[in-house]
């Protein structure tokens, strides 16, 4: 990645204005032509550096509820269990995290429209997956989803 791309990624993570021509406004800040900026962004998307440019939701302000959960899965069962969990659209993150002394190794987050829906998903996972599962809902939020400086 070159310097321009790094600067661009930092700007794009911080946010784009919601105006008629957002890329024109952003291009002025970066000292570029609008058309150049659009081409650069398309190339970053094509190369896979950016997944998308879109709205970042505040799940709780939208009335959604979420939790972190973890399962203790034997190694040979990981792919099957992970794939089953991934089938739920409400599962937004799912990672293998292994640490000494911690039985739980598959960590995932669920965001649903209300508590009933969340409970339904967790129950459905418990029915299918026989391994120990813990549910760790947020009690207090100190910080969320800040961009990374490149």
């Amino acid at each position: 990645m070159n310097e321009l791309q790094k600067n661009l990624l930092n700007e794009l993570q911080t946010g784009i204005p919601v105006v008629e021509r957002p890329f024109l406004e952003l291009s002025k800040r970066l000292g570029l032509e609008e058309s150049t900026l659009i081409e650069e962004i398309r190339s970053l998307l094509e190369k896979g550096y950016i997944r998308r440019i879109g709205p970042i939701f505040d799940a709780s302000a939208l009335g959604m509820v979420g939790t972190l959960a973890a399962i203790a899965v034997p190694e040979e069962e990981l792919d099957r269990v992970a794939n089953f969990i991934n089938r739920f659209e409400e599962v937004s993150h799912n990672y293998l995290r292994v640490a000494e002394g911690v039985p739980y190794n598959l960590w995932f987050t669920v965001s649903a429209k209300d508590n009933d829906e969340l409970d339904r998903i967790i129950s459905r996972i418990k029915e299918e997956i026989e391994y120990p599962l813990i549910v760790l809902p947020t009690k207090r939020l100190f910080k969320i989803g800040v961009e990374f400086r490149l």
Partner: protein
Amino acid sequence: MDQVDREILEKIQDGIPIVEKPFSEIGESLGLDESEVIDRLNRLIDEGKVRRFAASIAHIKVGINANAMCVWDVPDERVEEVGSICASFPEVTHCYERPRLDDWHYNLFTMVHGKSRKECEEVIQRISERINIDTFIILFSDKEYKKTGVRL
């Protein structure tokens, strides 16, 4: 949030088109004026339902290879203070208090991103010294099975 707000958000949650006038294109596909799309989105931002409009980057692709979930056992009466200190580190992107369970005693969760595991460990060491707590476990991500934004 009404039905029209919802339609707009559903339409763009996977990304806006990268064109000169993206909101005009979105409006056209929904039968709305460009100005209405823009007004509604800015209202949703003002209301805090949309945090911002921004790019979601693919961390590993851009060289942020390590992602550590560090869990801390913080005395209950110190959670407010310690949570605020952890959140003030720029390398910490998420910080939550979560419940203790019978077989799970770690109540503060911090996500730390870095170029390498070593870089994450150094940050966590600095945090540990600042908050004067050394009961923690680092759970690095060994494999990403899924990562999408929160969807409507």
